[in-house]
């Protein structure tokens, strides 16, 4: 995205192994200064390993990590100039808030009075004013999270790594802290990489999302790109498109003719891979229609509603078509065991050739 010299973080062909087990298989990633990147992946995909290798806690077995053009792959963590916020917060229980947040400044030989005033301004920024003398063991979860963030920010790092920073907070606090971290990053202008397994967190916070799968990067792109145009079945299902249906696509005239088992053929002017295709779609893409409705550019399949739940705002249905079940979100109320038509707008489906799915390892 940017030239290698101006990139804040440039990871090229990074390989990491734990003993004989390879965890990262050649990762390439370039992060521009001031950019907020979210690394998204299920547990065990190597996202935390990638973060810890950038921080210097884990030795790379191959490849390079450059920070503003400086190769740091053999540099110990204390000389990399990166701050990291740990998932466990890793606050030092034998120190006060002042001791924790001011630790980095003390190491840098900042005079005592200046440490006090700088810690006070960091705490003010994080809405923790007046807690300097408090033991960190006497803080709430949300306060600890802020102190951990404050400790990382106090040394005014150019790069901040965040390892699942919000996973220990309850849902309400999490949403609030999300926007706070984002605002701080805009205000202070540091480059941030955040590891998370929460899709919504990644979508709302990051400028670009990196989806990882089994030690490799599956897709990099803006939230819209990754969400609307996943480049693989894995990314599609990770971004929430968990319903799958087999389709048959044939060229016809200007566009294609799409047919699902048990449904009539639909002609469509969009582009689609030809042959056996598997479509991935999210439950809010599909909708339930009157059995007699017929809409252009959509596949319509007859089925029956077998289950209905109300998570709030809309209903969630399970629709059975033959022996397959699909989850569908619809705002209207429908009776159970009634025949309905499941409408799938072709433009919103993610279509992948079926062979590709069988070949690749798909979550």
């Amino acid at each position, binding site marked *: 995205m940017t030239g290698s010299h101006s990139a804040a973080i440039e990871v090229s062909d990074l390989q990491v192994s734990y003993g004989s087990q390879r965890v990262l298989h050649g990762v390439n990633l370039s992060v521009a200064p001031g950019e907020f990147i979210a690394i998204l992946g299920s547990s065990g995909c190597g996202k935390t390993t990638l973060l810890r290798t950038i*921080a210097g806690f884990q030795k790379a077995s191959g490849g390079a990590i450059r920070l503003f053009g400086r190769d740091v792959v053999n540099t110990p963590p*204390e000389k990399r100039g990166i701050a*990291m916020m740990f998932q466990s917060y890793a606050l*030092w229980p034998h120190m006060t808030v002042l001791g924790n947040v001011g630790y980095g400044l003390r190491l840098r030989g900042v005079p005592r009075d200046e440490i006090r005033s700088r810690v006070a301004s960091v705490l003010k920024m994080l809405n923790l004013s007046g807690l300097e003398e408090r033991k960190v063991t006497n803080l709430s979860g949300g306060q600890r999270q802020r102190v951990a963030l404050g400790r990382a920010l106090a040394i005014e790092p150019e790069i901040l790594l965040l390892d699942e920073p919000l996973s220990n907070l309850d849902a309400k606090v999490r949403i609030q802290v999300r926007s706070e971290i984002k605002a701080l990053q805009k205000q202070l202008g540091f480059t941030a990489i955040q590891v998370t397994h929460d899709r919504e967190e990644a979508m709302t916070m990051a400028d670009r999302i990196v989806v990882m799968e089994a030690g490799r990067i599956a897709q990099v792109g803006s939230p819209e790109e990754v969400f609307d145009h996943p480049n693989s079945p894995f990314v599609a299902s990770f971004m929430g498109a968990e319903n799958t249906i087999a389709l048959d696509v044939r060229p016809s005239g200007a566009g294609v003719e799409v047919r699902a088992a048990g449904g009539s053929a639909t002609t469509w002017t969009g582009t689609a891979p030809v042959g056996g295709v598997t479509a991935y779609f999210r439950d809010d893409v599909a909708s339930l229609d009157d059995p007699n409705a017929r809409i252009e550019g959509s596949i319509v399949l007859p089925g029956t509603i077998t289950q209905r739940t109300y998570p709030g705002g809309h209903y969630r249905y399970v629709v059975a078509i033959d022996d397959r079940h699909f989850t569908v979100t619809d705002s209207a109320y429908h009776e159970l065991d009634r025949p309905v038509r499941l409408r799938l707008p072709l433009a919103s489906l993610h279509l992948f050739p079926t062979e590709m799915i069988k070949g690749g390892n798909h979550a």
Partner: protein
Amino acid sequence: MSIKMPMTSSSASVMESPSPAVRNTRFERDPAPSAVSARAWSLGSTLTKILGLSVFAFLLFGPLANLVLWSFAERWYAPFKLPVSYGTRYWEVVFRPTGDAMSSLMTSVGIASLTVLVALAVSVPAGYALARLRLPWRTALMILFLLPQAFPSVAIYINVARVFYSLGLTGTITGVVLVHAAHGLVYSVWISAAAFAAVDKDLELAARNIGASPLRTFFTITLPLAAPGIMASAIFVFLESLDEFTGTFFVGVPQVTTLPLLLYNASMGGNYQIASITALILLVPSILFMLVIERFLRADVLSKVGQ
């Protein structure tokens, strides 16, 4: 004072036990036309409990009470069941500044303190290495520190005495400190390895991350967090040294006289008053230790001992 405490607690526990009995009988009065046998049963079980507690208390505190009695007995001979006359004469003898007891107390405390220093000098680095570094022979090393405990101590100390004699270490404080330290290393290495292992690695990494060198990290993060466990191991070593007899006997005699040796000499010489008072003095650090240990040794450290 240290003796009074356990005494009162024992009498308290004996006093307490009748109260459940009272509660039991009251409980049985209401539903009770056919409950005579049940009441007898409950009375019997209460009596058994009281009897059991008394026997237990006697076994625990009887010898201690006997020590206290002896320490205040100025004259006590057969056939009398209790001392003929009481007094504090022997306490004065023991605590006279020029007395043997005071000087051997000083020797004991001095040796114990030096032993702690020597043991910590080995066990802090060794404990850290065993807890943090990937050592190939880790288990073997841990067991190595157990070896001094694994063999009959008399046999070992006779040989140690022989070796020390050729090195000119017999009868010196250094020799005794070395013997005590070898003995104490078992506790100090195992406990400090556990204490270091209980420190979350992320806490160290967090310090490294914001600019601390490995050494700085050790002294500002790891060591303070492991300190309670290391303190506990130091106390263990101190008490073991204070109490140690066999090694001191073979290596230190006759120049070095510690409290246990004085106790041995006094009771061999039939001077039970001096022996009792020495024993009571030796009891003080143990009781202090029990109070301190439960503050310093937390469960998360204890769970890592020997891992």
